[in-house]
């Protein structure tokens, strides 16, 4: 099936153009740096004479969780950037250069080309997350025997977020030139990012208007909400109750609902459908 041929081609391109190699080497560098940070922070932060065994265990658990989530936050951002960068040029670039002409004149549906590329990138991002998320978790485990709660849910949500950004990028790439695509994606990311902040402040200060602004921004682009939900899932139950799930620059005060996750999945499907349709109808 042409979808799989194109998916394989997309992966092969990542290998041949050394995207995978660069991502791997920089990923390893990141993990080395991260493990040093993790080790030093733990050394510094643990009190020498804890008041009790229990408080020591809680503190230690909290710190490990904080450090792991901090690492995952960085990985999350890198994976999003990776998803956007590799997919921004794929359709727009091949349309611009004319490479696409020899492909779409074969007996294939144009949809198969878009879906194949999507599948290829989805595979690429999965590989990247396995390396990076696996690496961060391995560091926590090796250095302190720590495993975050709800690992599977957390990783699934992070993967969903990277897929979402990649899909929106692919959609834009089917109708806009590469640079415009990049501009739109980073603009949307900015909205999500700031919207998330406003929502958190709103929740802390109990300002409903601010929370609403955050919710609207995550309707426009639900990526940041997925990360906050992922961070919440991977926070120990006690901290969840207190409401101090770490999610990047601040703690999660307002947790995205199941409905928002479902909304994000729907958003992804619709974006992919729009991308497929736009490409199918486009003059090449």
């Amino acid at each position, binding site marked *: 099936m*042409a979808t799989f*041929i194109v998916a394989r*081609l997309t992966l*092969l*391109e990542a290998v*041949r*153009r050394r995207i995978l190699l660069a991502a791997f080497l920089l990923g390893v560098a990141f993990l080395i740096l991260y493990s040093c940070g993790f080790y030093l922070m733990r050394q510094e932060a643990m009190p020498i004479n804890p008041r009790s065994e229990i408080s020591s265990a809680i503190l230690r658990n909290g710190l490990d969780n904080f450090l792991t989530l901090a690492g995952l936050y960085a990985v999350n951002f890198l994976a999003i950037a990776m998803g956007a960068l590799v997919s921004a040029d794929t359709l727009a670039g091949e349309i611009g*250069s*004319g*490479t696409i*002409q*020899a*492909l*779409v*004149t*074969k*007996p*294939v*549906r144009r949809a198969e080309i878009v879906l194949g590329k999507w599948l290829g990138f989805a595979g690429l991002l999965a590989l990247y997350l396995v390396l990076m998320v696996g690496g961060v978790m391995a560091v926590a485990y090796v250095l302190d025997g720590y495993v975050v709660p709800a690992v599977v849910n957390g990783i699934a949500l992070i993967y969903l977020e990277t897929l979402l950004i990649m899909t929106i990028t692919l959609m834009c790439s089917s109708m806009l030139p590469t640079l415009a695509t990049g501009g739109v994606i980073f603009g949307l990311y900015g909205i999500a990012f700031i919207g998330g902040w406003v929502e958190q402040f709103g929740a802390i200060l109990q300002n409903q208007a601010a929370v609403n602004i955050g919710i609207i921004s995550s309707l426009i682009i639900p990526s940041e909400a997925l990360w906050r939900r992922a961070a919440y899932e991977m926070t120990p139950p006690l901290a969840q109750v207190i409401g101090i799930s770490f999610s990047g620059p601040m703690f999660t005060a307002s947790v995205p609902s199941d409905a928002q996750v479902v909304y994000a999945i729907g958003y992804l499907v619709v974006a992919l459908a729009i991308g497929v349709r736009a490409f199918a*109808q486009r*003059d*090449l």
Partner: protein
Amino acid sequence: MTFAIETNNLRKEFDENIAVRGLTLQVQQGEVFGFLGPNGAGKTTSIKMLLGLTAPTSGRATLLGAPLGDRAARARMGFLPEHFRFHDWLTAHEFLQLHGQLYRMSAARLRQRTEELLELVGLTPFRDKQLRTFSKGMLQRIGLAQALLNDPALVFLDEPTSGLDPVGRRLVRDIIADLKKRGMTIFLNSHLLSEVEITCDRVAFIKQGVVIRVSELQTLVNGATRVTVRANGLTPNVLQGLGQWGKEIRADGNQVTLTVVNESALPAINRFLVAQNVEVYALTPQHLSLEDLFIQIVGTDGGL
């Protein structure tokens, strides 16, 4: 009989301008059909519409008996795009494999065709080299191999000899001749009129988005003859009388040049001149090249 290509008033409008006003033509199966016209005449847009790259604004067309965009028909077509770029990080062999798979060819047949075609275009020694190391001519050759992978019934070649040296051009010409012998229909878009003259059976001239003339190449080239008459006594009356055989009469003292539709007009012209008491010193026929005809047919104002 079904035509390999039949279009009826295909039209393409972009926002403001009309790229193709109304393309109507028929290409017979098994012929090499040249598609000629000045820059901006709508040739590329026409080809893009035929190949389903661009949707026509209106009009109809069938390729190999099927409507535009039919995937079963596309499996029997080949296309060498103009200014083509391919995934240059693939090797020549991988590149052909990829395109063969997109044609849904069986693995065994694809393997056989890949080797055959690499041999045909002279790239067997470079089969495992990445395309980004290829010269322009080598890319053109591998592109041609790609267009022939599925042994198509109809192949579109858009400027197939651009970027080729004389050896490469000869190779492409020989390949086209061979394909024609095997009954393939070839739709050739080329600016190299000398190539067209050698390879094509029929040609269409397109200008400002319409076909202005379709003709057998042989009749076109053999027929049109330019005659130069050197004589004394070329009065305005005589010049006017010459008008019955040809157009584009250019007189210059005791020399007059006119283009006649057919060489067989020469004896009659001679008799006429003698009867008019003109002293004829020379009557020199000279075949027009396709380039002369091109300029005559589309004019010099077309290219933009």
